[in-house]
C-alpha cells in the first residue's frame, strides 16, 4: 500500500523580502580660516642712553650693538613672511663739518622659524623672510652701528625705530 507523504512547506520560506523605504540626506559643511598674523605685543622701546664716547665725542657703538627688544606675535599660515624696516637714529640739529647727527644700524627680527633684517644705510625695507606658522616672541636686535663720517656726535636727543611687518600670505 502506498502511503502518501504530505510535504508541507512553511509559508515563511517562500515569502519575498520586504522592500526598504528609508531616505538619506547629507549636509556638507565647509569653512575657511584666513591667513592671519597678529601682534600680541606690538610695541617696545630700546633706550640707548648716552651714545657718544666721553673722551672723544664720537659714536660709542657698544651702546647700540647687541641691544634688544622683544615683541610677541603669531601667524597661522605656512607662507607667512616677516619684513624689517629700520629708520636711522637722528637728531634735528644740523651737523657742520666734522660732526654727525645720524646713527645707522642693522635691525634683525628673529623668531624660531626664521629671521629678517634691514640696514638703515639703504632706503626701504629689507628682504622678506618666510617665517610660516609661529606663535611666540620676536627678538629685535641692533647691530653694525655707525655714523656717516665717524665724526663727533652733535649733542641732542636721537630717535629711530625698527618696524616689523608680518604678512599672512595664504
Amino acid at each position, binding site marked *: 500500500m502506498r502511503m502518501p507523504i504530505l510535504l508541507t512547506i512553511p509559508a515563511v520560506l517562500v515569502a519575498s523580502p520586504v522592500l526598504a523605504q528609508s531616505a538619506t540626506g547629507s549636509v556638507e559643511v565647509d569653512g575657511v580660516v584666513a591667513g592671519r598674523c597678529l601682534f600680541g605685543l606690538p610695541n617696545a622701546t630700546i633706550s640707548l642712553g648716552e651714545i657718544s664716547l666721553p673722551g672723544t665725542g664720537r659714536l660709542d657703538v657698544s651702546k647700540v650693538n647687541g641691544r634688544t627688544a622683544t615683541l610677541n606675535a603669531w601667524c597661522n599660515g605656512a607662507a607667512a613672511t616677516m619684513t624689517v624696516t629700520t629708520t636711522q637714529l637722528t637728531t634735528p640739529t644740523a651737523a657742520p663739518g666734522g*660732526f654727525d647727527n645720524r646713527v645707522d644700524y642693522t635691525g634683525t627680527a628673529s623668531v624660531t622659524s626664521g629671521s629678517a633684517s634691514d640696514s638703515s644705510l639703504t632706503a626701504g625695507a629689507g628682504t622678506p623672510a618666510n617665517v610660516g606658522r609661529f606663535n611666540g616672541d620676536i627678538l629685535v636686535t641692533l647691530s653694525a652701528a655707525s655714523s656717516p663720517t665717524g665724526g663727533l656726535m652733535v649733542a*641732542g636727543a636721537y630717535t629711530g625705530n625698527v618696524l616689523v611687518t*608680518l604678512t599672512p600670505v595664504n
Partner: protein
Amino acid sequence: MKRLVSLALLAMALPAAPALAQSTATGNVAIDGRVAPVCILGDPNPALVNLGQLSASSGPRTGKIATITPQTVQLPASFCNFAGSVVRVTATALTSSDTSVPQPGFSRAVNYTATATNWAAGASTATTNALRDGTSPTASGLGSTQPLPKIADIALTLSNFTAPGDLILVAGTYNGTVVVTLGPAAVAD
C-alpha cells in the same frame, strides 16, 4: 525609492561671508638715545712757552724789557658738539719768583696780551695790567659766541709784552699762566 538629497554649503556662495583677510600686522620698536653737550680742548702745543731772556742785555734799554716775539700755542682739534659756545681767556701776568716789593724804578711784573682765535668771529682777548709789585696780575676776556657745533684748532697768541712803567725788571725767574676755557656761552661767565 531611495532618495538622496545633497546640500552643499559653500562659503563662497554665501553673500554675507567676510573677505579673506590679507592685511599685514606691524610691530614697532622705538629707539632713543642721547648725546650730552660737551666741549673738549686739545692739549696745548707747546704746553710751556719759554720766553727766554726778558730784558735787554745791551744798548739803551739794558735792563728793561726786550722786544719779545709773539708766541703761539695751538690747541688742536678742540670742539664743542652744540651750538652756542664761547672761549674765555684768563691771563696772569708774568711775575718774578722774588716776591719782595721791588725798589723804586724796578718792576717784578711783565704784562702781555693773550688772544685766542679761530673759534668764533670775534677773538677772545685778555691783556694783563699788573702793577710793578706784581699785584692785580689777572685779566680775562670772552670772545664772541660760536653759533654752531665746531671743531677747530684754537690758536692762542701771546704778544705785546711790556713792563709796568717800562721799569727795569728785577732779576729772577718769571712765571705766568694763561687759562683757556671753552664752554657754553650761557654759563661762561
